């Protein structure tokens, strides 16, 4: 069994609004999977359907080879985007409660909570009320709550929002460590730079639909074939006038050139050399953002600019 989560033809509408439209995707086991897209793309609804918080109108969702049930629910750790805590509860009671609703036994919970309190340096706040804690500390508690039952799959919806850089780094280390233990992480965000650093598999969503899916390496390779960076003594208009050029833009004294699909790269180079002096030439590794914008365009979906 090498699929952690698979969705087949999943749709969900709220009244007339289609939140998710015929979504099919599969998250391989052990992957750091990025579910990406702008706000309102349908990411959170997708995740809520995976978590069986909202039910799909149609389609099938399988988790670790089964439909979601009580047992699988206890094997997932979920950090929602909208997250909070009971403000009047003591930290320690709160952690035990969150472990209890994942059916972690009392002794097991004590051991794990103990362990995490040390890792997160929260021990001095054990008997304080959640109210008295800083935002950052509250987020650490939410994170402990997500993993206290040692889940096989972690689903994190905008996990870094509102975190300071130190805690972002701390969290990232935990995610990497978690993954090294063979666990699956679904990472949901609209901040593409974060995803680019962490994920090895992604699914891009826009306007309720999937527009791109695959491994990060594969996607970059696919898109880089058409993307070149050249340093040349010519104007932008000159570069745009070369054969096979679909797009060109100036970037730090060089040009990033996108070739029309199927255009011959050697042909483009030869013609460029005939006319201008080329100082440097390289294949450009595309930014995730560029891949995204390109994919949105070619899918014919007009969309908001990503932040």
């Amino acid at each position, binding site marked *: 069994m090498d699929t952690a989560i698979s969705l087949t033809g999943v749709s969900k509408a*709220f*009244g007339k609004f289609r939140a998710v439209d015929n979504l099919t995707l599969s998250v391989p086991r052990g992957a750091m999977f990025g579910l990406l897209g702008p706000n309102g793309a349908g990411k959170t609804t997708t995740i*809520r359907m995976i*978590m*069986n*918080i*909202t*039910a*799909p*109108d149609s389609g099938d969702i399988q988790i670790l080879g*089964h*439909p*979601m*049930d*009580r*047992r699988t*629910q*206890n094997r*997932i750790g*979920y*950090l*929602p985007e*909208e*997250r*909070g*805590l*009971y*403000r*009047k*509860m003591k930290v320690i*009671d709160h952690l035990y*409660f*969150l472990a*209890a*609703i*994942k*059916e972690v036994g009392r002794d097991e919970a004590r051991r794990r909570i103990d362990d995490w309190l040390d890792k997160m340096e929260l021990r001095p706040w054990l008997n304080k009320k959640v109210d008295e804690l800083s935002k950052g500390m509250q987020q650490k508690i*939410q994170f402990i*709550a997500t993993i206290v039952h040692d889940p096989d799959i972690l689903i994190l919806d905008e996990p870094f929002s509102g975190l300071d850089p130190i805690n972002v780094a701390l969290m990232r280390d935990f995610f990497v460590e978690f993954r090294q233990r063979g666990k699956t992480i679904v990472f949901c965000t609209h901040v593409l730079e974060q995803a680019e650093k962490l994920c090895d598999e992604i699914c891009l969503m826009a306007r309720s639909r999937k527009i791109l899916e695959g491994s990060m390496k594969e996607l970059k390779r696919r898109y880089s074939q058409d993307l070149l960076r050249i340093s040349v003594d010519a104007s932008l208009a000159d570069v745009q006038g070369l054969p096979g050029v679909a797009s060109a833009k100036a970037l730090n004294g060089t040009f990033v050139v996108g070739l029309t699909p199927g255009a011959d790269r050697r042909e483009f180079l030869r013609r460029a050399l005939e006319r201008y002096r080329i100082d440097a030439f390289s294949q450009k590794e595309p930014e995730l953002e560029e891949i995204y914008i390109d994919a949105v365009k070619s899918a014919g979906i007009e969309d908001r600019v990503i932040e």
Partner: protein
Amino acid sequence: MNWKKTFAVARREYVERVRTRAFWIATLLIPILFLGYVAVQISISRKTGGERQLVVVDLTGKLYQPLVQELAETEAKQKEKGSSSRGPHWSLTQQAPAADLAAQKEALRKEVLQKKINGYLILEPAKLDKDEVEYYSTTVSDYIAQSQLQSAIGRIWMRQKMTARGLPADLARELETRIDLKAFKVTEKGTAEEKGAGIIAALVLLILMYSTFFMYGYQVMRGTIEEKSNRIVEIIVASVRPTELMVGKILGIGLVGLTQYFVWSLVAANLSLPAFASLLSSSDMGMPRVPVSLLGYFMLFFLLGYFLYASVYTMIAAPFNTDQEAQQLAMIPMVLIVGGIAVYPGVMNNPTGGMALFFSLFPFTASLIMFLRTAVSEPPVWQILLCVAILLGTTAALAWFAGRIYRVGILMYGKKPTIPEIIRWARYSPGKVTQPAVKPS
């Protein structure tokens, strides 16, 4: 339903609430306040046994003396019987009617206001012919004193009319009959004289039930809204089904209510009751007999009513993010609960009548009214069973509907939804819960 998770939720609700200082203050303070209230009531009612200064202006010229005598006799008889409705000690003074009656009344009015006298009585032949007598006092709601005065004058006036028609005075006295109605409650177990204390106990329990519907229903609403405004609800529903969260919350808070009752009954048994008993016995009402069956019915109808109203309050809370937004709809259960209290006097008067039957079967008043009926009469078993069935059925339907709204509502933030929107939510496809293939160990 995963009961393990449901109980984890219920446990949290219970422990967190019972731990608060506010809970213990309310739990210990309410019986003390209540006892104080009863003590004040009883001491007020005993004060009516005090002296009453009354000026009598007798325009007939023949009623004053017999009235003094009659009132003295009444007092003597009551003392002898030790009746519960003991009236005041009357001290009458006669004032000759002045030529200007209006001016005389005005002068007496001033005396009453200056508290020189408690009141005055005008006996006019013209009014008496129409069976009327004017009584002026600062308090005209003093039921016992007024009825004593009324019947005393009535008897004298009747006696005088009879002698005027030629009946001998002793015969007139003999014909006069005073009936003392003794009320016995007929039950299957026999008959028992009802002195009023039993009814008071039932009413106290009724008010208690009524106010706890409010208190705990409101807590269910607040708790639900709080989970949303705290933004914790999505963390919880990732582990617990919304239905389990809802049921757990209702159970936990209901248990807090039962704990409060339990503490109250302990306080009552150990502290208030002896004090209460001494007050009551000195007021001649007798000790309230609270049969165990009444307490059983109280628990039954409290729980049934609480579950029903808790479902209503959940339904109201789920779509909203703040108490203020929910306030408007919170009027609905409030009116329904108050409705149950509003109809109780009618039910008391005729606990076996059609109105009593209707309200004891109408789901939103049933718990209060059926409890009252079991306290003051003995409703047929089929009616009690039907009432329980109606309550359970309505609660199941409401809980189902509330669950559907809750499921959607708890994840809705931002704009306050309209009622048609909320109703539409109930039609969204529900989350399916599949049974685990293998039972988790």
